[in-house]
């Protein structure tokens, strides 16, 4: 089959590799109809995530048709159309029992490294380094899905892939980010980053009762989408002082909750952002928390900082004093996709939301190397790339 394989930093290739096989009794094999490149794939592409190996198959946002099932798969049958959650849950451990699937105790086959680095390993993930299990990803013609009784969500025929694919990660991720804000009527939510997760977070914040959402980015087409499609007020951080603007817009009180949908590769414009970039380049720090610092500074007293943006290592100069002085609550982590998928599917099917608005590039799997480059450089107004097997 064809698969998108990581070759090293800034280098991916479409290779011909062996077809996947059923390896365990609860495995299923999916023929992939659509797959996407996630913002977090760019952290792999840029070489920010350790434990990648040459040849690793990328991709954790995918959907398709069930082609083969192991003897213990009861919830799926051949021919089912499914969307697959990016984090793998066993369904039976302490965390899966609490629907905290991305904390699954059992799905990382070699958790030694993650246990050492993070204290405890989270769930295994598709195509996201050997730190998180080394599972072959879904930017391919086929993928093996372990614990198939638990993860894949069966979706009805007749609804196009474009509307359903983002149930695999970014739609639930934006939704959980907003849910983590514990939104009360009248709340103002500020969202850093108008990439796909940020845009879904804006929409979800309104769905959950927010009065106002203020979105921050620097890319004109992303700000335009946040404003026109998602109905946010927008700030271009290259053209204004974000902290001043937020203070004025919220009558001095500050946003009730702040969402960092940027994560560890934040750009920023000030002295500190250039300093962060230099430090990361010479390994004095691993992550660049420019957006997060600003969110902490802006947030109202007693507010919540919700972090769907991915962090991998160590942060420098976090304003812990501000966080403490204002009694902020921090909520973060990988998304429990399986927990939110059914309700979000209903929302899509009832016409409440159409996630396909994000897609700027609908390409072929063969185009993956160019697609990664385009997305990484945010060229050609690229917001979201999906790829199909033709």
């Amino acid at each position, binding site marked *: 089959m064809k698969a998108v394989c990581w070759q090293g930093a800034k280098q991916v290739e479409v290779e011909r590799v062996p077809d996947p*096989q059923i390896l365990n*009794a609860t495995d299923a094999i999916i023929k992939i109809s659509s797959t996407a490149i996630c913002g977090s794939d760019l952290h792999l592409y840029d070489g920010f995530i350790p434990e990648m190996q040459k040849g690793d198959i990328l991709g954790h946002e995918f959907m398709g048709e069930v082609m083969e099932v192991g003897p213990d798969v009861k919830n799926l049958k051949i021919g089912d159309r499914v969307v697959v959650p990016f984090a793998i849950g066993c369904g039976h*451990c302490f965390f899966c029992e609490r629907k905290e699937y991305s904390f699954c105790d*059992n799905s990382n086959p070699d958790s030694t490294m993650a246990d050492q680095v993070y204290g405890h390993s989270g769930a295994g993930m598709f195509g996201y380094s050997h730190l998180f299990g080394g599972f072959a990803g879904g930017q391919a013609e086929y993928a093996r899905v372990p614990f198939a009784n638990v993860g894949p969500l069966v979706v009805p025929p007749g609804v196009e892939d474009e509307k359903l694919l983002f149930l695999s990660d970014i739609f639930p991720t934006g939704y959980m980010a907003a849910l983590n804000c514990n939104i009360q009527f009248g709340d103002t939510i500020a969202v850093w980053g108008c990439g796909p997760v940020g845009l879904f977070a804006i929409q979800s914040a309104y769905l959950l009762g927010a009065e106002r959402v203020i979105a921050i980015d620097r890319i004109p087409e992303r700000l335009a989408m946040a404003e026109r499609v998602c109905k946010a007020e927008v700030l271009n951080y290259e053209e204004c002082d974000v902290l001043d603007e937020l203070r004025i817009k919220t009558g001095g009180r500050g946003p009730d909750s702040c969402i960092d949908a940027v994560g560890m590769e934040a750009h920023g414009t000030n002295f500190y952002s250039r300093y962060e970039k230099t430090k990361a380049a010479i390994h004095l720090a691993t992550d660049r928390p420019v957006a997060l610092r600003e969110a902490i500074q802006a947030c109202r007293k007693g507010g919540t900082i919700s972090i769907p943006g991915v962090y991998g290592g160590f942060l420098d100069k976090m304003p812990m004093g501000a966080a403490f002085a204002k009694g902020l609550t921090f909520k973060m982590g990988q998304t429990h996709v399986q927990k939110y998928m059914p309700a979000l599917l209903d929302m899509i099917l009832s016409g409440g939301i159409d996630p396909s608005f994000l897609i700027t590039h609908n390409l072929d799997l063969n185009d993956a190397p160019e697609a990664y480059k385009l997305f990484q450089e945010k060229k050609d107004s690229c917001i979201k790339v999906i790829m199909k097997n033709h």
Partner: protein
Amino acid sequence: MAQDAARNLSVLEQRQRHRLHEGVKVIDSVTIQASAKRIFEFWSRFENLPLFIGHLDSVTPLSNQRSLWIWKALNGHKQIEWESVLIESEPYHLISWKTSPDSEVHHAGSVIFRELPYGRGTVVTVRMLYDPPLGGLADIFERIVGESPQYNLMNDLKKLRQLMEVGEIPRVDGQPTGGQPEEINPALH
């Protein structure tokens, strides 16, 4: 009630400690979402141990008390074996064993099961002692348990948890990756 249980537990732990007094000692514990009864019964069938203990190739019961343990390393090219004797088996709380006196290798182990309230699972605490042999067996013994017995035990307990909670051990060996020649799975075409 709770005090009695705590006292019983500390007696069990003391007994567990006394068994092990020399050589390489390792201890680790894991919490498993299953009843103490179920895990106890699984462990009591020593022939199940190779399902989660790395390098342990087989355990064959010889009688109610005795069993033959065969370890393999270097892809099965090297082998070491010993006879184990069951010392104690206290239903749903404790199992302990050690090698028979005429064994070339001295090993002892014990496991205690402590079920937590409110559905929090069962804490399984394992203590193992290995007394390294002399002579020709030393090298192979080193490969089986010696390099990092603590790491081995930790990994083995994770596998036990996977078996007890989900009934399978997740794996990625055998999955496709770049750089391998293309192979067709007929079920997909």
